[in-house]
């Protein structure tokens, strides 16, 4: 059953065509990764999906209805830190639910669960400038999952973290996702990360960006990056986005 369906999505900035006729489907509960060469308009792509900017042409449907942040439950985890500095960790995680007007009792229950899942129980009363960059990104992820989104968009959330932390947070992300079964679209330029996380990978082309190919990753989790099948898929994706 398809949860999100994108048809003929096109974005032009003046004469520059950034996205050209992109069509794809995302299944309910699927973890979709989108990879592509640097500067191919990945972020524009996500901004379109989140309805932050209007599309020139094409449609985005969620559950057979035109996507709308006020109606659908969309969450976005940004590349940059996005915790509000005047709110504590706990109040930041609650923000999405407050906007969605979740009843207080349920909010408390969900907060407790998600804070526990991301391992932030010890610092719920701290402010963003009192915690590390990786913890701040976990706050953003907890805030996103707490709203139990129809569609969770992630824009290179671990791009600015070091390798070890990234591995750790990727495992954590998979754990939360496995438990919540939300639909995720995860953008990255890191091929290994995409093979490690995704059910399916969409490889984008250079500008004007289209979907070059789909790659299914049918490997059991937790995945082993030394598995020969893992390497095969990684090489396949690498070959697809080579432009040199």
């Amino acid at each position, binding site marked *: 059953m398809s949860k999100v369906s994108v048809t003929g999505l096109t974005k032009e900035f003046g004469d520059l065509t950034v996205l050209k006729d992109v069509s794809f489907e995302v299944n309910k509960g699927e973890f979709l990764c989108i990879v592509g060469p640097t500067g191919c308009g990945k972020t524009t792509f996500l901004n379109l999906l989140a309805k*932050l900017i209007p599309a020139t042409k094409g449609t985005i449907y969620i559950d057979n209805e035109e996507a709308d942040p006020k109606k659908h439950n*969309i*969450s*976005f985890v940004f590349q940059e830190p*996005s915790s*509000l500095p005047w709110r504590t960790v706990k109040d930041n995680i609650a*923000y999405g639910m407050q906007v*969605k007007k979740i009843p207080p009792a349920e909010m408390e229950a969900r907060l407790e669960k998600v804070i526990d899942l991301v391992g932030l129980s010890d610092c719920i009363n701290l*402010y963003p400038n009192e915690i590390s960059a990786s913890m701040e990104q976990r706050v953003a992820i907890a805030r996103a999952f707490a*709203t139990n989104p129809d569609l969770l968009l992630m824009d290179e959330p671990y791009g600015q973290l070091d390798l070890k932390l990234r591995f750790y947070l990727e495992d954590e992300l998979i754990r939360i996702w496995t438990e919540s079964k939300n639909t995720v679209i995860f953008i990255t330029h890191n091929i290994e990360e995409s093979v490690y996380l995704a059910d399916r990978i969409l490889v984008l082309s250079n500008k004007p960006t289209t979907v070059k190919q789909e790659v299914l990753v049918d490997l059991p989790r937790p995945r082993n990056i030394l598995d020969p099948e893992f390497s095969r898929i990684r090489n396949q994706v690498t070959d697809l986005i080579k432009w040199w």
Partner: protein
Amino acid sequence: MGKKSTNTLVLRIIPYVSILSCLIIWQLIVVLNIVPNTLLASPLQVIKLFIYKLNHTQPDGGLILVHAFVSLKEALIGYVLALLIGIPLGLAMGWFKPIDGLIRPLFEILRPIPPVAWIPLTIFWFGIGLSGKVFIIFLAGLVPVVINSYTGVRMTNPVYIRMARTYGATKWRIFIDVCVPSALPMVFGGLQVALSVSWMTLVAAELIAADSGLGFFITMGQRLLMPDMIILGILMIGLTGVVIGIIVDKVEKRLVAGMWR
């Protein structure tokens, strides 16, 4: 350890030494008649006058603390009015395009006019009483308050706004939840600037048109050829300004600490 504590002791004493030596030099200049007493009063004369003015209304018609209180009252009413109107106006201009479009052209025309330029007109309109001064101070305080509130909202990190939008927050909700708290430090910066501008403008207004207040006190000193009275007025203005500055700073620290860390 011993050396360090001596150092801090010296550092603590230094400011008092500089003030004290200034006072001594000043006293000597007058006592040795380097500058004639008709042009400059000595610190001791000023202190004597201050003590005298605490319970004598002569020669200007009011006690010194009454003058200070009148000035303070005028400044605070004008200042508070400027905050009550300026902060919401500036914040709204920063976020809601139609309000910005309506108000900004007018504001840009009024902005470069020095508030003291309004004094003659306000004398026509309000006379030399309280309301005229309040109006001038309101105008003077309004400009920095509006500009800082506006800029504070404009400088909101766009990621925070996008974040709130993706959760489906309305424009109003984003304004209240994200833009206003994010603008607060800038708003408070504006309050400090507005305060010093208001205080300066008030004194200018009182020098020109008043029947009480510290500016009036100075003018009387000039008319009566009493340099000690002029100097006392100047010092009182400085001291009162410092006291209000400290109060605003304290209020700011408490309020911002509640919202920002």
